[in-house]
């Protein structure tokens, strides 16, 4: 790290001096100056958490003051939550013995890329397009709960897919009344974007919702809802000709 001159002991607050001494005792001689600050922040937060927990325990036990037992209990509970240590050795030896007893599985020849079953892979598309048609009859009077959450791409497995799902036009089943647009909560695609596609497609008014199957992704859902306003209703009509997968198309989990 960048070794700037250490602050002279006289100007350093007492807590920081204590921390420097601790680091020295543990044999750590080279560190960035910001390490002290980080350690102090951690210490402060940890101690505060423990003392708050201890206060809760002591009031629960109807004691007037917080005493050592409460602190001890608070530390114990936090240790199991935050500072989890790896499993003990005998446990590891035990599961190793079990695992190592099964013989190595034979390798099937000529099978292409050797990957685990699809549900354990990250190769499925992480979104699917849901056709509107099936919802027409059932949701005439229902308020659709908006499930719009445009989250940033988390570093969890929400990865791009091997192949983009193919989307078919629903042009043939048009009967989509314009009034449906009012029932869905949709996000209008910026007209600039939509305009570029406009030329490519005939005016097939389609309203489609793109839903996320939450079982595909871990915690974050990405929902993109597109509103293709029919040409009849507004002047700047656009329609996105998108090929969407039939609902049963992909590997349902």
């Amino acid at each position, binding site marked *: 790290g960048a070794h700037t001159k250490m602050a002279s002991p006289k100007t350093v607050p007492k807590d920081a001096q204590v921390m420097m001494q601790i680091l020295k005792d543990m044999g750590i001689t080279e560190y960035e100056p910001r390490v002290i600050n980080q350690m102090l922040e951690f210490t402060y937060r940890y101690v505060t958490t423990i003392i708050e927990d201890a206060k809760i325990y002591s009031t629960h036990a109807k004691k007037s003051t917080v005493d050592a037992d409460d602190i001890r209990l608070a530390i114990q509970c936090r240790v199991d939550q935050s500072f989890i240590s790896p499993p003990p050795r005998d446990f590891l*030896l035990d599961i*190793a013995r079990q695992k190592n007893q099964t013989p190595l599985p034979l390798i099937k020849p000529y099978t292409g890329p050797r990957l685990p079953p699809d549900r354990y892979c990250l190769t499925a598309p992480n979104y699917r397009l849901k056709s509107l048609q099936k919802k027409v009859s059932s949701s005439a009077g229902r308020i659709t709960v908006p499930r719009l959450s445009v989250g940033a791409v988390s570093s969890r497995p929400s990865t791009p897919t*091997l192949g983009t799902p193919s989307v078919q036009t629903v042009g043939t089943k048009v009967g989509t009344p314009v009034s449906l647009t009012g029932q869905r909560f949709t996000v209008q695609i910026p007209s600039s974007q939509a305009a570029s596609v406009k030329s490519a497609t005939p005016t097939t008014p389609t309203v489609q919702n793109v839903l996320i199957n939450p079982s595909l992704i871990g915690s974050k859902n990405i929902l993109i809802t597109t509103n293709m306003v029919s040409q009849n209703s507004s002047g700047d009509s656009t329609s996105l000709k998108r090929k969407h997968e039939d609902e049963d198309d992909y590997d349902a989990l």
Partner: protein
Amino acid sequence: MAAVQDGPMELDTEKETKPEILSDGTSKLSGNTASGTLSSSPLTAGGAPKQEDQQTLIAVLQFLRRNKLSESVEILRREAGLEDQEDSQTLDGSGGGKGDRDGGEANSLLSRVSITSAAAPQSTLTPITVKRANEQLDVSVVLSAYSQQGDPSLYQVYYSGLKNFIESVLDCHRAELSQLFYPLFVHMYLELVYNNHENEAKAFFEKFGGDQECYYQDDLRVLCGLTKKEHLKGNEVLLDFRTSRFVLRISRDSYQLLKRHLQERHNNQIWNIIQEHLYIDIFDGMPRSKSQIDSMSGSFAGEARREVNKVKVFHGLLKEPEIEVPLDDEEDEAENEEGKPKKKKTKKDSMGSKSKKQDPNAPQQNRIPLPELKDSDKLDKIMYMKESTKRIRLGPENLPSICFYSFLNAYQGLTAVDFTDDSSLLAGGFADSTVRIWSVTPKKLRKVKSAGELNLIDKESDDVLERIMDEKTASESKILCGHSGPVYSVSFSPDRNYLLSSSEDGTVRLWSLQTFTCLVGYKGHNYPVWDTHFSPFGYYFVSGGHDRVARLWATDHYQPLRIFAGHLADVTCTRFHPNSNYVATGSTDRTIRLWDVLNGNCVRIFTGHKGPVHSLAFSPNGKFLASGSTDGRVLLWDIGHGLMIGELKGHTDTIYALKFSRDGEILASGSMDNTVRLWDSTKAFDDVETDDFTAATGHIHLPDNSQELLLGTYHSKSTPVTHLHFTRRNLLLAAGGYSSQ
């Protein structure tokens, strides 16, 4: 007041002998010494305050009362001049000092009991409560506790007694017996801490901590900070140390000396501790010298038992498949099983005749299932053969050129590097959780087109393999995002289709190098995974992490196939043997273990490093293993015999990169001290003749010839070396992140 003090036999001695006080008369100590007289012979006769006697007598009285020896009670009371005190009165502790002492005594008794019964009494409980609990204790329990442990305050005496003895023996035995110091010291210290004798523990540490060997100083520093039992609780490494047995190798003569000494004294606490915590592996032969011992010691659990390293290991190479090479010069592909370099200078392979014999050291072809060779693999092999013919033969007179790839603007975030075998791709793992791939050759990186576009191409054309690649997004480098923590290791598959990366988030990810997307996340370690490595034949890979195990996976199983458990601390480095039947793991416990893939057994344990092992390299012929650690030494091991055969000193900082040249003549090592060093491995392996190994002890004297073996030192400008790679033509590539100071 302590209800039970001692066994009936020693009642008389109890009454008469004054309790000793070794150090300052703290309350705890006084209680301890009183009971300490039982199991240990009296050592010093310090002046005991009258209250000690009083207390002892009352304790005795208590015991007699409990056992309904009323006449004895009367006699004692009359003779000792004790007043008829009820238990409760003394319990409530009228005098302050007396009360404290009582508390101290009870505490110490209870703490002693905790050894056997594992009931952990709180040392901060008020004296009254303690005494009440104490009264309910069984006599037998307390008695048995005494026989287990010596008096804590006497630990210093035991230790110095042993020290005096060892210093008085003959020189030849002294070195061997000095091995006892460290494990005994640590175990005694941990016992004191575990039983809540904090002050004694600190005093013990201060007195004897400085005597220990210099290479244990890091461990001692950690121990120094551990003064309470609670500190031990989360520390798995030290708990393992307590429960596993430290192995010492001592010659029979030295052992007899020791045994005789310890058994003839009355206080044989050390003997008890040795029996409980140490394992002494006795060998017949000459006692070892200090330097021999020093070279093998340093690990967390002592050395390895001789039997452990006697398992047969198939370190030979697998037979190469016969591939017809449709070239102008029809070279026969049959290779010599001993893995001699393929010197295809002549058209005819004169070594073909040997291909019929099976190398006794090589495993069966089908010992472990291996993937079959695909057509693309066969083409790769042909390329490999062609490049090998152009390989430069290296040696002390012919050193390789080194090409250093410096990662600029990495700001110390570069944590892992790997090259493909044909040196066409370079992958870097970073602390910001990304993996980046660069093309080393002028050819750009291309990914496969999307499904829609693939539909449109002509599948019958000759150059279909180029057409499926997307030209529009071709670039020099690609970024792979997916991990949620720093990426500590990357490994290419031999067929260049996949890349593995392991990270602090506990997962190992498999990436496709055709689409540059993530295919699978293997979850199993729930803790940072420090290293991962693909098998030389693909399909299998091994990973090792903070949970102290290494796992063997196959790309098509979401759970590991084998779990290699046995290390006492994190597994920091994992490597496959060239024949893919064995896995070597280096660990923070300073040992290297060799595991059998077939059944998960540990077949070799190599000790000798004095710091965590961070790099491993198998020689191309499969016989030898090189390892580098934070102590700056490279150690060479003979796998077949299970012995250390070389020590290369020179580096001054952690060695993170080790690689043998393609034919095994040169070993290159790269370190944090910004240097790459080349060592003459042919000489290092030739020098050691196998005659010495047949001796049962297998202790060889290592010549200090590091300087002769060092062929060259090459400094980079403040760039630590993270990875080394020999191209197929024996050009050395090195990689590291430039750090500006």
